[in-house]
Every structure is written in C-alpha cells, then in structure tokens.
C-alpha cells in the first residue's frame, strides 16, 4: 500500500459541495459532500438515475465537477495538470457493471493490463497475475477471452484487473448488477477480503439492497442530487422475488 501525501486518517476521497451539471436545469449532482476514511468499505445506494455512476466518475477522474471540489489522497484534483492525473489514477481500481474487459485480450492479459501499461516486465509479474486469477477462482481460465466467460467470470476478471496494482481505493459501479444473487455474494466476499487483508478503501455503488443489509457496511444514500450517511439496516428490505409488484 502506498501512502505518499496521505496522513493516516486523512480521507482517501473527499467531495466538498461537488456538483455536476450538463446545462441549465440539468443538475446530475447538486451539492454532494462526502468523505471516505482509509480502510473503509462503503456502499453508495440510491434510486436509478440518482447519479451514483456520475459520482463514481468524479472519483476516478473520468469527469470534472462543474461546482465544488474533489480531493483524492489529500490532493485537490482541480489543481492538477493533465499529466498528473495518470499517477493518481494508478492508485485507484475501478470495476464496472458491464465489466469493460478488452474483448481481444485473454483473461490473463486483461488482468495484466495495468502492469503492462506501467512498463512492467512480464517475467516479473506473471506469477502475481496467475495467483490473483487463481484467488478469484479463474486459475484454469487464463487464456479464455471475455466472449467465452460467464457474467460472474467476467466480473471476477474485472475485479482482478482492478486490484492487480494493489490500489489504495477501489470504486465499483454496480459490480453485482449483471450476475445472479449467489455470484453477487461471492463477489462481495472478494471485496470484503480485499478490504480486510490489504486495508483497501472500497466504495461500491449498488441498488442491491439485500446485499447492503447483509454486509452491515457503511452506507451513503444518494437522492435528489445530494448524499447522506445512513446505517445499513435503514435501507428498506428488498421485495421477495416473485412477489406481486
């Protein structure tokens, strides 16, 4: 774990009255303030269209706020030059609902991608990548291309890719959205293990309320362009499957 420029209890991610607007009367995020402490595991919930993905995009520097401030590892990102974004991004791992694996690469190559981008020699990282894929249960699918993997397998490859450089922060956008309930719980256990073993700070955006209630983790609820901290138990119980609407 790296800790350059970050005091022990300084927030890993901090949003101060951050807003994102795509024009007049089209605020996606109005006035969001939040802070993630190092080693925390937090869920971000809220109705569809509340802006969960936009908030994560702000956090992984895929979008600049139109108002307020976003700080990562104690660095105000609004003051960063373009070339300084890459070193910061290397401290963040991102997992998407739709996996975003490179279809022409194998599972092994997808996971090794961040190391390859950093200029690592394959002989130096090969064992780590294989070990990581084995840890997520894909030790026998190294050469499989994404098209031949199931949704759960793809998401595990995406998680392995996100953690291969041992990031300080993992942002997951609906990581269980495209997998069944059992696989969703299995994926969450991976996140939980990462959080406990490596003290990686994790923020998971999800509308899987059953998972949130079971996790007993911190919960941030996003609604009407603003975010508030709520206990996990405060999230409403999901409707049982097959129940009338």
């Amino acid at each position, binding site marked *: 774990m790296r800790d350059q420029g970050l005091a022990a209890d300084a927030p890993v991610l901090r949003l101060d009255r951050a807003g994102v607007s795509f024009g007049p009367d089209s605020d996606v995020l109005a006035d969001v303030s939040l802070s993630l402490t190092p080693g925390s595991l937090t869920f971000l919930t809220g109705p569809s269209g509340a802006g969960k993905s936009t908030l994560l995009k702000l956090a*992984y*520097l*895929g*979008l*600049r706020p139109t108002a307020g401030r976003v700080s990562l590892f104690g660095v105000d990102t609004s003051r960063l030059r*373009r*070339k300084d974004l*890459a*070193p910061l*991004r*290397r401290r*963040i791992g*991102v997992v998407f609902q739709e996996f*975003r694996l*490179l*279809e*022409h*690469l*194998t599972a*092994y*190559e997808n996971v*090794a*991608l*961040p190391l*390859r*981008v*950093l200029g690592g020699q*394959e002989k130096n990282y*090969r064992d780590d990548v*294989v070990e990581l894929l084995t840890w997520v249960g894909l030790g026998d699918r*190294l*050469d499989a291309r994404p098209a031949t993997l199931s949704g759960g397998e793809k998401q595990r490859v995406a998680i392995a*890719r996100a953690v291969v*450089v041992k990031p300080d922060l993992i942002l997951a956008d609906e990581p269980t959205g495209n997998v069944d309930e059992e696989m969703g719980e299995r994926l969450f256990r991976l996140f939980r293990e990462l959080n406990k073993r490596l003290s990686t700070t994790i923020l998971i955006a999800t509308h899987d309320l059953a998972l949130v209630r079971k996790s007993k983790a911190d919960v941030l609820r996003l609604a009407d362009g603003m975010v508030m901290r709520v206990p996990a138990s405060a999230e409403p119980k999901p409707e049982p499957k097959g129940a009338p609407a």
Partner: protein
Amino acid sequence: MSAASSPLLPREDAREAALFFVVCALCFLAALSGLVSRSAYAAADSWTSDVSGEITIRVRGDDAALANAIEITKTTPGIASARAITRDEAEELLRPWLGAGGVPLSMPLPRLIAAEAAPAANAEELLRRLGSQLKTAGLDTIVDDHLVWSGDVRRSIDLAGLVALISVGLLGATGIAVIAFATHATLLARRDIVEILHLSGAQDGYIAGLFERRFLMLGVQAGALGALLAFGAAAFVLYLLRQSVAQIWLLPQLSLSLADGLILGMAPLVAGAASMTAARVTVMRSLSDMV
C-alpha cells in the same frame, strides 16, 4: 503459459484495409510523379547538354557557297571545328518524321554546316561575329545556336517539374489528412479501450504511442507496396516505349536509375513518417479533449 503478447489495439480489418488501399494508391501516384519528374529533368539535361556549344548554319546556295561558308566558319576565332552535314546525315535527322527512305532523291535538302564552339567562347559574341563575317562574304546563311530551343525545353521541363512537385505535395497532404481522419475515427471507435488504458494509469503519450506504431507500420507497408507498383508501372511504360524506335529517340534518358531507386525507397519511409506524425498529433489533440 499465458503471455501478455496481444496488441493492445485490436486490428480493424475492414477499416484498415480501406485505409491501406488509400495510402498505397497515394504512394503509388506520388512515387510515379517523382519518377516522371526526375526522368523529365534527366531528359532535359541530356537534350540541352547535347546541343550546348553546337552551332548549325544553313547555307542557301550551291556547293561552292557551302565550301566558302565552311572555310569562313573554321577561321572564325572561337570556333573549334566545322564540317558539312552530309545528305545521309540530313536524311537520318528527318527519319523520325518522314520514315526510312522517306526522302526522295529529287527532294532538295538544305545545305548544313555543323560547327562546334570552343569551350571558353562567348556564345553571343561568337554568333554575332560569325554571322557578320558570313554576311560580309556575301553568303546567304542562317546561324542557329539552339539557345532559343534549349531554353524553351528547359523552361517547359522546369514547369513540368514544378507541377510534379506540387502533385507530390498535394498527394502527401491528402495522405496525411486521410490518416488523421482514420486515426480520429479509430480513436472514437476505440474510446472504450482508451478509457480503460487511462484508468489503468496510462499517460496520453503511451496511448498515442500505440496508435503511432499501428499507423507507422500501415504507412510503411502501404508505401512499400505503392512504390513497388510504381516501379512496375514505370518498367512497363519503359518496355512499351522501347518497342518504338521513334519514341526512344525522343526520350533518350528514360531508364530506371539509382536516383529512381532512391525515390522508390523513400516512398515507404516518408509514408511511414507521415502516418506516424499524423496519428500522434491527432491522438494527442483528441485526448486533450477527454478528461
């Protein structure tokens, strides 16, 4: 054991095949323009150096007048040599227009003298002096030093060279524009990959490098094929020209030389460098618009 050997940018078969064809065609045309331009210069050099220093005198009158004119010419300071052009030589000169045996014996041919100026002679002054002496001797002559003709040839060739140079420039600019457009299209089509690379911590230069290498290879390969086709076309044209004696007489210097080899060899290198530069500039500019 797995290895991270796959290229990070996947091949775009249909789009790249079309781009390859366009770059290849542009290189073919550019290389051909270069070859034509160089051959034209070489031909002009040959023609003008052949006639420089040569003076032709046409004598109206009988054989005595011709002999008198030769004598006066020979003794004029600045003239290295002078001799009469025989009827056979005159017929040979007319052969491209009238064909072999096309000059009837009854047809009178002008009496001509071929003279050569000494290397250090001032052409203008020599012609004035020679013309004056022939006139003083009462001879009806026309002195032609080919300067007007060779000047016209040189000007025409210079103009053709300029047109060829502009053509090569336009073809090059078109190639760069096409590659820039294709790079931009590829970048947009592969925005997902670019985003994942960014999220993996890649700097813009790293991403631009991927596109640069891709288009460098495309440019070099398409340029090499275009140059090869241009060589084939030039060789075919030469072969056709050599079937015609008259044409070869008109274009004495048309042949593939070391300079042509250089032009053909340069085509893939220039195409590769232009492709690489166009790709880099386009990608860096496009990435600067992304977050």
